């Protein structure tokens, strides 16, 4: 998806929250969704960590990617996110000290979060405008956080009978909900429901003809905007060229219209 399409398309501007959710649609950051969702607090910690790493990384990617050679970019981004995580830990430790025991190494692993790295390395963010990169960072973090909180909302009460640390009355408890296998299974179901809803949405939206890349409007807009890449360029040049001539043809055939119509009627 090119940025131009996104700019044109209101819905795709907020990719990452629901539409291209990093965990459910792209499958990035699954370990975090499984390990950290044991309690809502750990989910909150990791969501905050994601936000605090995504924003600087995406900004760096959008502004400085040109100056960094391709092979070095991932390294630089990880260093940036690690640098961002350090002060965040100090802050979060003062708020939720116990969570870091549960998280263990996974907090530090957020420096290598694929939900941040992969979009940062893709053309979506690399070289785009910083404002757009910031928006992307926020969207992805929000999507990530939604999934984490959603899963934790089920696992914490069922597993340990608490929500955000406060004990809650739950009809049945399943201590093994704390085990990773349960997290994987829940994540799988979440992804399945998400895909079902996505397909449903696409079906509905297609009928309306809006909010979709492939809709006529966006396609025509795309064609008018010159795209990078030789093939695409030439393709579009020719279509434009053809279109030009179609328009000329139309002008010239104005006088033949009546004849055409009668013939059409005759044939029918």
């Amino acid at each position, binding site marked *: 998806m090119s940025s131009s399409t996104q700019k044109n398309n209101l819905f795709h501007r907020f990719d990452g929250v629901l539409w291209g959710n990093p965990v459910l649609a792209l499958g990035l950051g699954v370990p975090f969704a499984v390990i950290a969702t044991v309690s809502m607090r750990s989910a909150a910690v990791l969501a905050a960590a994601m936000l605090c790493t995504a924003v600087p990384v995406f900004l760096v990617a959008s502004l400085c990617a040109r100056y960094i050679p391709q092979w070095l970019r991932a390294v630089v981004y990880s260093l940036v996110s690690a640098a961002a995580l350090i002060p965040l830990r100090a802050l979060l430790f003062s708020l939720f000290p116990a969570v870091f025991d549960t998280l263990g190494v996974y907090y530090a692993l957020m420096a290598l979060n694929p939900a941040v790295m992969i979009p940062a390395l893709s053309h979506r963010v690399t070289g785009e405008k910083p404002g757009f990169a910031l928006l992307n960072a926020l969207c992805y973090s929000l999507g990530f956080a939604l999934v984490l909180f959603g899963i934790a909302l089920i696992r914490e009460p069922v597993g340990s009978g608490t929500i955000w640390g406060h004990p809650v009355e739950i009809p049945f408890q*399943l201590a093994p909900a704390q085990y990773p296998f349960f997290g994987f299974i829940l994540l799988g179901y979440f992804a399945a429901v998400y895909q079902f809803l996505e397909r449903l949405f696409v079906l509905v939206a297609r009928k309306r003809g809006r909010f979709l890349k492939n809709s006529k409007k966006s396609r025509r807009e795309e064609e008018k905007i010159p795209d990078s890449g030789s093939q695409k360029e030439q393709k579009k040049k020719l279509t434009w060229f053809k279109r030009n001539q179609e328009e000329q043809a139309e002008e010239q055939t104005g006088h033949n219209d009546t004849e055409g119509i009668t013939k059409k009627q005759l044939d029918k």
Partner: protein
Amino acid sequence: MKEFIPISKAHKTPKRSLTNRKPLILLSKDSSNAMMGDVVIAMLPLLVMACYFYGTRPLMVALWSVAACKLADSVCCLIARHKLMLGDLSPMVTGLVIAMLLPASVPYYIPVAAGLFAILVVKQPFGGTGNNLFNPAAAGFAFAAVCWPQTIFRYPQPMERMEAAGPVTVRLLEGSAYTLKLGGIPSIDWQELLLGNFAGPMGATHILVMATCLIFLLARKTADWRIPLGFISVAAVFSFFFARIPTSPLNSIYFELFSGSVIFTAIYMVTDPVTAPKTGWGRFVYGGLAGLLTMLFRYYGGFEQGGMFAVLVCNALSFSLDRCFISAKESVRRVYGELVNAKK
């Protein structure tokens, strides 16, 4: 997968038009549903023995388990828009296997939960009947074992009959597998051990009955003989050479095999055709590997029984085993063909 039509519609097929489908008279008289039916039939004697020992409660446990599985299966078929086959017996098999592995005193929510897990998580998301990668019954029981270990592995004493309804008031004992795990020798007479007159899973203790059922299944060709043979022989050899209890090696085989669910796993869980490999040699290796892993899990694992986990691990390997043997055969054939050509 989406081609099957419900039995009710079959009789509405017009007799007058010509079809492409072969009439049954040109095909073998077997049916896959009948194969599942064979397995159900092979477990009914175990249920009868359990009822004899434990009263009517085992019947209710089995009913709850089967009902949960069947209902979940049907609901999933509707959701996935497969044609509903109400006569499909495979969820019944799953339900019965889960029930047989549980103690007769188990609270009803456990077989229901295990059955639901088996169908909703392990069987249907992978495609339903015939497409599951892992044995749903083994996975359901493993889930129950992980979630409620205390409840699952405490068995009532046989001949203390329990009612179907009402609380369970009998004394619960540890199974013989637990004794073995601690390094002790279960104090059970050999006749009792063979007849199943000792505390253990409600369907997995009746060794003689299970042996008969095994012969039945082998004769009907529902279970391939290679798998239980591999399983039991490797488990026996392992317990012979690496006895963990201070008796003679033969006694060790005897106790190890007849405690817990080793024989039951060998006959009903490992032989599941959907998840087992299809090549002959692959089946041998699969059975052997499952036997080995069962013994290892029993010796070194966290639970006293290891059959269900071993089956799950081997299910993951069954395609690889098949592929290995198929490629081996193909290369042998090619080499042989080249040799023959070279001779010419």
